[in-house]
């Protein structure tokens, strides 16, 4: 039956991919139609899956009727839907922004300019990426994950090079290499797991309750691969140049969404397939995350390029996602629901807030045609709404209430205090203050009235509103979290063990 809710999963993956094919055609109308269709497919599929999963628990869809172990199975639970929703929300705002950012490409002059070339390829690449992200969140088996990871990595690296500068090309190439190496590590892990378990299905691997050296090596390999793609300290060096060099809408996608794709895989493996793995491994991840929080923030404070500053902030904020790992499984055994909801709420809030900041920063650099903090001096008076969007996004990032970041911080802190993990609690608190330091540094330049920027280009209203919409969403996430958190618990948190 076509109305069966399982088809939402197909729509979520195939919708953006097909829309991407349409956008490939290249004419402005096709690009716009492609974006609208991709957006519509993602949003409606997410809404459909959300209601279904809340009502009926996790959902399985054997594609073409071929179930496990032979066929490909799509799987959706609360975690998948949360990630889909995050992608749909941020993705829609960015799509809207992109239609204005690249200029009116129906004019030949614009189309042939470097920016116009960016515009032509942005939409197809982004829709391809969107489809692969949705696919990752809905994959039921590890080989599928590998294939989708490769698509994600290739399209993401290509998006960096859309800004036709030599910097962007170098950064994009570096990103591509890291991404491919990361996938190779993952593929090695897949092969090992298949050898040991005889299955590729995440669910069955979980039920086997694998232990012993081979699965441990497999997990280690996959973790290294995914950590590289998620830019976990100390493999983060590729991220700032890549995210800073990309065109603003691409930066927002990369920082807000793409890194979450590989993070999601890591979480699935550690929590769902390996049930926490080894305590030592969790601690290593946590300590690397903590280092990332401090190091990323300090590096952010030292940047003069606005976009690099935000990119280093991503390195720092991703650190919290790894601090979540040791918190999830307290030393005395058991499970911390606060760490689970807090960590994932942080992932969601960070995506929304960071995208708002990158889009706002994009509008500012668009206006002054330079990516330099000193060049945006006084911009708060020229682009007040963009300034507000950047500020609200930054405050959410720092966990200032009311904001999604605050709710996440509260939950993570509570998890840490409950376990007596005072080191983690202090880290989370200090990390928030460091975040404030670099956000305020930008705001201070933006309100400075001592010198006028020499040249100033008008920014399309749509760009300003897209950033503002995300900033308001970050705020609202802090007023009402109940539905999102109960979604996460729909059908049990660790469904397969």
């Amino acid at each position, binding site marked *: 039956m076509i109305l069966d809710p399982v088809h939402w999963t197909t729509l979520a993956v195939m919708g953006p991919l097909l829309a991407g094919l349409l956008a490939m055609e290249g004419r402005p109308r096709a690009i716009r139609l492609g974006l609208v269709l991709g957006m519509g497919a993602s949003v409606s599929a997410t809404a459909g899956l959300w209601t279904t999963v809340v009502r009926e628990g996790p959902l399985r869809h054997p594609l073409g009727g071929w179930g496990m172990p032979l066929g490909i199975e799509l799987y959706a639970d609360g975690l998948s839907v949360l990630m889909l929703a995050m992608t749909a929300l941020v993705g829609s705002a960015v799509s809207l922004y992109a239609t204005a950012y690249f200029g009116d490409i129906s004019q030949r002059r614009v189309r042939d300019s470097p920016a116009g070339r960016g515009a032509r390829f942005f939409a197809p690449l982004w829709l391809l990426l969107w489809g692969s992200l949705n696919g990752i969140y809905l994959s039921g088996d590890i080989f599928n994950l590998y294939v989708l990871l490769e698509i994600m990595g290739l399209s993401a690296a290509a998006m960096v090079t859309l800004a036709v500068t030599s910097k962007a090309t170098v950064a994009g190439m570096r990103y591509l290499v890291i991404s491919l190496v990361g996938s190779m590590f993952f593929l090695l892990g897949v092969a090992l797991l298949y050898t040991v378990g005889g299955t590729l299905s995440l669910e069955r691997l979980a039920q086997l309750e694998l232990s012993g050296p081979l699965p441990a090596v497999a997990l280690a390999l996959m973790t290294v691969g995914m950590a590289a793609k998620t830019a976990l300290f100390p493999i983060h060096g590729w991220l700032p140049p890549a995210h800073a060099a990309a065109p603003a809408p691409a930066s927002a996608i990369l920082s807000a969404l793409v890194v979450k794709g590989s993070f999601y895989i890591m979480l699935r493996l550690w929590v769902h397939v390996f049930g926490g793995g080894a305590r030592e491994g969790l601690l290593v991840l946590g300590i690397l995350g903590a280092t990332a929080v401090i190091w990323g923030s300090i590096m952010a404070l030292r940047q003069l390029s606005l976009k690099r500053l935000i990119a280093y902030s991503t390195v720092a904020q991703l650190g919290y996602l790894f601090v979540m790992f040791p918190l999830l499984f307290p030393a005395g055994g058991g499970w911390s629901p606060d760490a689970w*909801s807090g960590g994932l709420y942080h992932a969601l809030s960070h995506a929304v807030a960071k995208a708002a900041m990158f889009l706002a920063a994009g509008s500012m650099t668009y206006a002054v045609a330079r990516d330099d903090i000193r060049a945006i001096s006084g911009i708060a008076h020229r682009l007040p709404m963009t300034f507000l969007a950047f500020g609200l996004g930054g*405050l959410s990032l720092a*966990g*200032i*209430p*009311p904001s999604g970041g*605050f*709710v996440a*911080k*509260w*939950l993570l*802190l*509570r998890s840490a*205090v*409950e376990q007596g993990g005072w080191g983690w*609690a202090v880290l989370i*608190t*200090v990390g*928030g*203050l460091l975040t*404030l330091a670099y956000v*305020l540094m930008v705001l*201070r330049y933006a309100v400075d*009235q001592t010198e006028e920027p020499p040249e100033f280009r008008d920014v399309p209203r749509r760009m300003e509103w897209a950033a503002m919409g995300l900033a308001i969403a970050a705020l609202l996430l*802090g*007023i*009402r*979290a*109940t539905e999102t*958190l*109960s979604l996460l618990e729909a059908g049990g948190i660790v469904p397969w063990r």
Partner: protein
Amino acid sequence: MTPVLDWEILPLLVVLSSFVPGVWIMFLQEEQKGLRTTLNMVGAVAKVLLVGLMLQGVGAGAAYEWRLQVLPGLELSLIGDALALLFVTLSAVLWLVTTVYAIGYLEDSPNRTRFFSFFSLCVTATTGLAMAGDLFTFVIFYEALTWATYPLVVHRGTPEAIQAGRLYLIYTLTAGAALVLGAVWFQVEAGTVAFAPGGVLDMAAVEGAPVRYFSLFLVLLAGVSVKAAFFPVHGWLPIAMVAPAPVSALLHAVAVVKAGAFGVTRLLHSLFGIEVAWEMGAAGMVAGLAAFTIIYGSIRALAQDDLKRLLAFSTVSQLSYIALGVAFLTPMAQAGGLVHLVHQGIMKITLFFCAGVLAQTLEVKKVSQMAGVARRLPLTMLAFSVAALGMIGIPPVAGFLSKWYLGVGALDAGAPWVIPVLLASSLLNAAYFLPVIRTAYFDEPDPDRWTDRGHSRRFEADWRLVVPTVITALLALLSGLFGGIPWSPLGWAELIVDRRIL
């Protein structure tokens, strides 16, 4: 007597009555003066009316409570009980008066849209934290208050103002981080963040782990004491005086500093419970810290020539009366502390208003320029004298009642050491306020040191500056004269203590 209106949503409406104008004004153009003024005044009057309705309701025994779940186990909750209303009424009335004052004070200066927008948001945050029904809600509004005040502190945009703003943020944001950590910790220890009369902690649990609970208290105290300007974290307050006079008046006599003092009250009474707090030594520590700050602030005030800095150090000192009073177990001391929240607010705002009139009309900012100003600004200096005498504690002005209740209450509580503190403080108050009054009235005027901007037709200065000043001075006098009736601030404070709402 029955409540006229018992809508549960009333506390939310009180918060929204300044939030909506604040956000609306943000989107106005600088030249839309009429609409801006209308929004300001409508919001301010509406807030006073709504608060009046709630006062009547609570007096008649109603309780107002509005809740919204944020996540399971944590909610935004606004309650309108007698204690909340004490602070809310003060904020609402003084906001109305200060709005009129600010409109006059900032006539024709730049960035008024931004100013009035954040001014309204400040009051929103203040009323929100006053009515917060739990620590979670309190934290939200407490942090929001920091962000709403910052643009006002740096309003002038001078390097000095930016520097002051920076310092303000460093102090308040660090404190905010401590408060969040403490709040989460409290939830883990107590299983709840709700405010309850008599506290929510179990005496046996506290006695079982005294060090842990004392550390918890210290973290939370660090969070609220910065805004309460306790020694040694008072340093931001005198420096933040670079803000325009209406900001200093409302925010540094009422909103921000009172948020801190109110937080100390909530911490002692609604979270730990005053009996538990005494038992673990926390309340005694607060009393000692407050007593020290009272003397310290007064001594520092002695050496100031800049009028606003003098008033700021006086605030540092006077604020601690509140903490001192509520830290004791006896009803009289508690009532004295609570009522000083209102009394100090009315008197200090009068003094700041006067400083603003002096600065705006004559460009007089220092005590040494004030020789003979009473002849030029008789009404203003009369208001100043009333408020200053009240601060010293001379009857019948309001400050006397606070000090009397504090003193008697402390004696009841077996803490006679408070009496010399109060006496010393009064003497010091006299030592820095009386010379100001003397020079204003009895020294030969020296108009060369003034830059007179002229009279208005009927008043000695712009009526929008003089009328609010006279009104608040009258309020200070009336609160003192009629302290015995139920609806006076003192009557209300006694009601809070009697009903055991604290």
